[in-house]
């Protein structure tokens, strides 16, 4: 059943999912229940200025009401700039940005993540860089730099370390990206 009905946004409270609150708290949003919905965070948020329907305060409100589907059906949480204006101004130390991140973590566990996020993770596993441009070697040479930076690209044993880390964290259990095979490196711009 849809939790937000029709175009006028009437919220059906009894359709809310109370387990969402605990999930958020477990995935990094520990201070969720400290929020008093004062909206100081919203006043500082670029997402509000840009016109996204869900931003820090509204994401928190929707979580408290258990509106899981409404949050998952909307891409707003992926537009958060990680700018932490909200964390700076919140009078209750809720860390609203962390709540948005926790909601992303919920979404990923339901495979509701944007293609670009998958590509970024795959690129991180394949090259050690989430942002990787295949033609970058030429660009670097043009300004007089070696084609590869002194990163995982130049040091295979370093890339192996990054992969081992990824294989030993939750990313591996979630199965969002293929692991273990040697990756094909394509361009990826997150």
């Amino acid at each position: 059943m849809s939790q937000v009905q029709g175009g006028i946004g009437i919220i059906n409270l009894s359709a809310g999912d109370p387990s969402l609150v605990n999930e958020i708290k477990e995935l990094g949003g520990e201070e969720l229940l400290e929020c008093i919905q004062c909206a100081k965070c919203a006043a500082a948020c670029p997402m509000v200025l840009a016109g996204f329907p869900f931003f820090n305060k509204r994401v928190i409100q929707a979580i408290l009401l258990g509106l899981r589907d409404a949050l998952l059906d909307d891409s707003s949480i992926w537009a958060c700039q990680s700018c932490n204006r909200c964390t700076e101004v919140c009078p209750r130390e809720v860390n609203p940005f962390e709540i948005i991140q926790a909601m992303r973590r919920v979404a990923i566990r339901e495979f509701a993540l944007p293609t670009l996020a998958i590509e970024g993770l795959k690129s991180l596993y394949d090259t050690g860089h989430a942002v990787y441009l295949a033609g970058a070697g030429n660009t670097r040479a043009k300004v007089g730099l070696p084609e590869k930076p002194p990163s995982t690209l130049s040091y295979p044993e370093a890339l192996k370390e990054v992969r081992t880390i990824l294989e030993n964290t939750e990313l591996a259990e979630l199965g969002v990206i293929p692991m273990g095979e040697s990756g094909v490196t394509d361009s990826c711009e997150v």
Partner: protein
Amino acid sequence: MKVGFFIGCNTSFNRPDLEQAVRHAFPALGIELDDLEGQSCCPTWGTLPSVDVVGWCAVSARNHTIAEQKGLDIVTVCGSCYGSLSEAKYKMEVDPELKAKVNEVLQTIGREYKGTSNVRLTYYYLYHEIGPEKIRASLKYTLGGLKVALQPGCHTLWPSKVYYDKEEDPFHPRVLKEMVEALGATVGHYTRLIDCCGMGAMRSTDMEKSLNLFRRKILSIKEEVDPDLIITGCSSCLIQFDTAQEMLRREKKINFEIPVLHFMQALAICLGADPEKVAGLARTNVKSVIGKILPS
């Protein structure tokens, strides 16, 4: 003086001229750069930080350990790297349990995170370790006669609790202003100074909304300052300001172009670097403004 240079993905692959600017300016001011061989992505916000806290901090901590083993602090020129590396460090500091979990993961690659290296942003590092006066005295050329608008960038400011170098009031930043004035420019104030530029996750999610946000900002700059040059403190802002003006012009939403440089590029040019190397990938027309900096 020596410091570890954390380059970051966007600077390495998208704007390596900015990497060159750092590689020129630091040694010219007497600071040796270490390559932190084997560094990876910081990791950036839309990847591991959006998956789980331990994984995020483990990849970050691995980068930290490279600097720790050499006894060096880390400098980066990228706002996102600065934010992600600083925040992970802060998290592990206030949460020893998290730090222990991260070290369990790091054991699989024979590393241990201690938390002994500080994370610094290039121009804050120079501000505190060298100082505007000494920098002014080292310049070969200056930005004298140029009117400049600033773009400090989100990640240099908030959340202030996680950063080693802090502004007195992050909503009224002054370090970038003092540094640009040290180069000889006149800095103009505009009301949307600390607004977000719209780069990053917002641009990846909704280009139109991102461009609208950017337009509000660039119009405020044009109307209130009408500068010869915009100087950014963040590499992501540099990319947005350098590419989004062209997009808006194509849509006939603005009818002007303001050249854009990162602070480190402007500094490197004033220290005598070859503009082709340290600013050669700019899409906006920086040639005319560089022509005003260098003697003809």
